[in-house]
């Protein structure tokens, strides 16, 4: 292992490296979910979108030899699932969460079905950027190579923040999510705004899937997402529907995910599975701490998850 030569210093290093790698899917899915939820809809189906994105990116990268084409395809595949969710979840008296669960099963089922032939072959991976040009230590160099998708995601977070505050579309999305009646009185089509938000959010989630199969862990298998799409939904609540805080929360979750492998790399095998479960434990803890039956969450869009009449 790269970290062995560094002794115990390897643990924080491995966690940092793991954070930079592992946070990418969290970041994209949570930004996508943040955009969707700002319009007042919940899309649990992003777990399925993530898998579909991972599979289609890997397949296209393998078939065409161009990983970037794979990334685009992953986004488009996400939009396709988003269209279905956007239409279904906006039918009268339909519940977002029920449609979302159906979409998890549909998205992952479709990904497994179409992805069977691509489990064995190895596809060209996305190039990486090195943050460690200043060092000669090879372990550091390999640990600090990051994905261009990470940089893209880090750039999208403040852009989205600015979009919500200073663009007409951003204000429209917030208006629709917080008070559909007010938006309707302004002559805004609730259906179109929510559809656009869901489709755009699903595009981002699809790209999150591409980073799983084309960067880290960098292969396609059916167990690749291990619930990260669902965790990202919890993460949006933790981030109080704020894109910048989504970024911080994604780094935290990515870091939590890296604890298990980091401990193992320095030879601590005890509680391996417990450490691996840390993102899930973190999700539960956040839910317990932030949710109370006695009050509503501050920052939650007013109409979040309510079915249309």
């Amino acid at each position, binding site marked *: 292992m790269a970290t062995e030569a560094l002794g115990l210093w390897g643990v924080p290093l491995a966690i940092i490296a793991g954070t930079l790698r592992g946070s990418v899917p969290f970041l994209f899915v949570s930004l996508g979910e943040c955009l969707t939820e700002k319009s007042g809809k919940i899309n649990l189906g992003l777990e399925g979108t993530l898998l579909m994105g991972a599979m289609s990116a890997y397949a296209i990268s393998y078939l065409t030899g161009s990983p970037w084409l794979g990334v685009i395809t992953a986004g488009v595949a996400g939009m396709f699932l988003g269209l279905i969710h956007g239409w279904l979840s906006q039918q009268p008296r339909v519940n977002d969460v029920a449609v979302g669960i159906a979409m998890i099963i549909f998205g992952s089922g479709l990904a497994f079905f179409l992805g069977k032939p691509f489990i064995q072959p190895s596809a060209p991976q996305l190039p990486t950027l090195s943050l460690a040009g200043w060092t000669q230590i090879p372990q550091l160099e390999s640990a600090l190579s990051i994905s261009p998708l990470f940089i893209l995601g880090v750039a999208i977070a403040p852009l989205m923040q600015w979009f919500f*505050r*200073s*663009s*007409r*579309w951003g*204000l*429209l999305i*917030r*208006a629709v999510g*917080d*008070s559909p*009646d*007010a*938006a309707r*009185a*302004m*002559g805004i089509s609730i259906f179109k705004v929510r559809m656009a938000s869901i489709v755009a959010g699903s595009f981002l989630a699809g790209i999150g899937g591409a980073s799983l199969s084309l960067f880290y862990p960098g292969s396609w298998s059916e167990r690749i997402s291990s619930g990260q799409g669902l965790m990202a939904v919890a993460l949006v609540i933790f981030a109080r529907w704020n894109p910048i805080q989504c970024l911080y929360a994604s780094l935290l979750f990515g870091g939590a995910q890296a604890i298990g492998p980091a401990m193992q790399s320095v030879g601590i095998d005890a509680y391996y599975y417990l450490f691996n479960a840390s993102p899930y434990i973190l999700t539960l803890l956040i839910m317990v701490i932030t949710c*109370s039956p*006695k*009050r*509503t969450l*501050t*920052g939650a*869009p*007013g109409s979040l998850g309510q079915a249309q009449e």
Partner: protein
Amino acid sequence: METAIAAPQTKTAPPELEVINLTKRFGTFTALDQVSIKVTPGSFHALLGENGAGKSTLVKCIMGFYTPTSGEVLIDQQTRTIASPKDAHHFGLGMVYQHFTSVPAMTVAENLVLSRYDSPQWINWKAEYERLDAFMATSPFQIDLRTPISQLAAGQKQKLEILKQLYLNSRVLILDEPTSVLTPDEADEVLGLLREEVTAGHLSVLMISHKFREVMAFTDEVTVLRKGQLAGHGYVRDLTVDDMAHMMLGEKQEATPVEKVTIADPKPVLELRNLCADRDNGLPAVRSASLTIRSGEIVGIAGVSGNGQRELVEVLAGQRPRHSGEILVNGEPYQSTRKEMARHQVYTLPEEPLRNACVPHMSVAENMALRTFDCPPQAKRGLLSLINIRRMAEGLVKVFSVKTPSVDTPVGNLSGGNVQRTVLARELSSTNINLLIAANPCFGLDFSAVDYIHSQILAARNRGVAVLLVSEDLDELLKLSDRITVISDGELVYESPTAAADIKTLGHKMAGH
């Protein structure tokens, strides 16, 4: 982009708005039948009518929400097709709704900019704030631009709704019961400032109202609708309140006179001691409320909506946990459990009965049995007796004259007044009621339903029931209650016997002065 900005300085004269023979049918139901109305430039016009008289339908046809079945809308003597609120805006018409249409999570400035039909795709906040500040300087009301709507008081929200229309350069304002959530003082301030703008010739106003006091004080002309038809029109200076009431109600309906019986030996039934409760967001809603209600008296709680009344009633009804404090019923601690309600005979008429007191998809009979279905004779040895449940419901439907196709109809299909009657039947049919808690029991009901509910509440009081009546309608409280308490920002700030209560003082206390 500069030219696209609404220009508040140019105060052009308002156009003339005229509606000729407008008819609107929904299926076989005729909501409006050959109605004509004319709003001359620079006049303050009131549109009066009972609930369901077609006032809202008329203005919605004018604003382009509905397409009229037949008839014409004329702007400055030209026939115009108004297909959407956007078209109406183009002709200088703007509407202020009964319910607030600002987005609670956004600031005043964001709401104003968003409301503009021509707002730019990318917003330069620095320049927008400069323009908004300039607009505020010339406007009749002042509101801080950076405050989120959720932190504004109801009066400020209503002012913002009107400001929004001025900001959009609307010259004919249509107001749908604009003062329903305001204190009398706030209402006078808002209408007074609008009156000044009208007198100066900057605006025309068409105001839907059912408050004669405001119509007499602020408007020039009045048009009255009854059951979808034009029932009268005239200048306010030529009319009396009686004339207008007669036009509104048709054949003269006399309200059942209030007769109160003094109960011998009143004993305390409900006691609140330093009761505190929180809002949904965890902030305090009810602050240390203490109150005693004795048998055979009605205690009214007056206040502008959103000052903690809803939370107080929810705590008493068992829908919300209290934060601290004590509730005693008949001298015993009371936790609002079903068992205690049955033992102490506590009944509730909450606001929005369909949401708070009914299961909409269950039948009228089932809803009427919600209090008693598990006791004999409706339940025998743990099994429900559907026959007895139906029989009891059929009796109650007759006694309380609930208009329903059958007792098996889902209660959600009934009209608002009949839902309220269903709940009333369930809550008032018990022979030995001890305590009745009523919250806005007549909200949105027509004259006869209101009269019926008032007489039922009074009858209960005269039988010795202790009644807590929470209402936003001061007239209702002055009519029914023996004592009036004012709630402001969660505190019970003022108490007075109704006979000695003065509407002006009550208004000041409601506004928190």
